[in-house]
């Protein structure tokens, strides 16, 4: 979700325009495997790993703010990380996002971690 991130914790990922509408791109930042998602013009960054069987989520279809895992079809709410369906109840981690000068920036620090993330 787009919000204000303290400048000291802001990490620049890529130009927002590189991610097409309802597309996504995987980015690695240190130990963090991230997926930058554009859901109808809203940017989200989530961990690029399904909480069901740990497949990468890259390439999953985005509709109405939800990302479908391309492997078994678990759908995740990109705002909260919460899954739908029967395969898993474990949410994926979501990261605070801010668009700065046309770039997608994130807070990957523990301070920015969602309480449900993991």
């Amino acid at each position, binding site marked *: 979700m787009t919000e204000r991130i303290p400048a000291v914790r802001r990490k620049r990922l890529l130009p927002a325009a590189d991610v097409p509408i309802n597309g996504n791109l995987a980015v690695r930042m240190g130990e963090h495997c991230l997926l930058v998602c554009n859901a109808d013009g809203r940017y989200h960054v989530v961990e690029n790993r399904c909480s069901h069987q740990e497949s990468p989520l890259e390439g999953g279809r985005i509709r109405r703010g939800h990302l479908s*895992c*391309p*492997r*078994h*079809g*678990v759908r995740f709410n990109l705002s909260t990380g919460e899954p739908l369906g*029967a395969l898993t109840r474990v949410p994926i981690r979501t990261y605070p996002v801010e668009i700065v000068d046309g770039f997608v920036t994130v807070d990957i620090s523990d301070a920015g971690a969602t309480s449900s993330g993991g």
Partner: protein
Amino acid sequence: MSQAVANANGRPEKVEEPTLRFDPVNARRYTSADYFRQEWQRMWMRTWQIGGVSYQATEPGDYLVTELGAESILLVRQDDGSMKGFFNVCPHRGTRVVAGEEGSAGRFTCPYHGWQFDHAGVVVTAPNANDFPQGNPCGHLRMKPVQVEELFGFIWFNMDLEAPSLTECLGPNVVEEIGSYRMEKMVRVLNMSTRADSNWKIITDNFNEAYHVQVLHPELIPYIESQAEICQFDLLRGGHNRGWFPAHQPSMLYQGEAVPEPLASMVREWDIDPAQWQGKDRLEELRLEVQKQKRRLGTERGFAHYEHLKDYQLTDFIIYNLFPNSVITVGPDGVQLLRPRPHESDPQKCYFDHWWLVPEIAGRAMTPSPAGGPDLPVADAEHEFVEYGTKTLGTTTDQDLSIAAIQQKGLASAGMDDFYLSHQERRVQRFHEVLNDYVEGTPPVRSV
């Protein structure tokens, strides 16, 4: 087969109705587990069902999953643009292959042993594929197919591969009339489901008669007619039926002289001054004036879909009860699906779906909600499951569901004999006779 009884622009064409047999209708079919199983095997497994909206799956590999009773059906867009459907079951050991309601996949992968299927449902890879004494499953085992067709912007399926085509089952009248609303160009702005404490047929029966409206839905009296003297009900071949409800005029039950709300606000939108339409005689002509104004102003105001509609369709509501459970209510500015679905195991429970689809009108980002509450954005809605009682499913739907549970209880009583139905409830009678035909093994084959 059919004869016109009035100006074709004034109301739907009256058709010759099938003769009723007056089979007794009793409570067993609402409560018995044996009947529930028979009904499943002989009727549900053989009839056409709506699986989803076509635009949910536009690209090759896009899929959606729909539930009916204990079954899960996987519907997949093919590389050539057509749709195919399968029982969502791995032929290896029965695991559901796809978990989500919709998505996109190059291949489908069973989460248990990792068998992979192509878009046609055929196994393409399996770990240790040569370890099977019966032979390598790749290339010949598959998810079992169902019939699939697209019509009215919906994806339909039928678990019976031998069943007549959907258009054959619906018949030309239904196909043409519902088709005139151009639902394939609409967007589903409401997509709600709930669980109800009744057999699915209690909800279907409710949509098959309007006798209850004056009692249960008095809020409709100011702008919709539901009295049988004026409305038109038609039994159609194949077990379907149609009910025509003239609207944009008060019901004959309305006692006042002035144009009541919400009708007054509705006609003001079309530059009609309600003050000029006072008195019984004038009120009866108001509906025609609305039709005239919509015809005159509709196109310039962005209501492009009006050009495909007949005059009566510009004001009136028509309910199409498509056997067994697809209830499509069309109005001038949107279409509802009101649909009970059987429970997976309990004859005394069911699910209920409420969809609302509207045409996109230039400059209008919001649309009134048939579920009450604030206007809805004109945008594809996420599916929402609502526990009945925690949130409204719509005023009239809430009223109907409030009855369903107490009727179910009464039907389980030793004090209940056969139904005692009025002539205006003959669509209920006909529905049960066609259901009997299915359960007894003689389903109707052709429609008119």
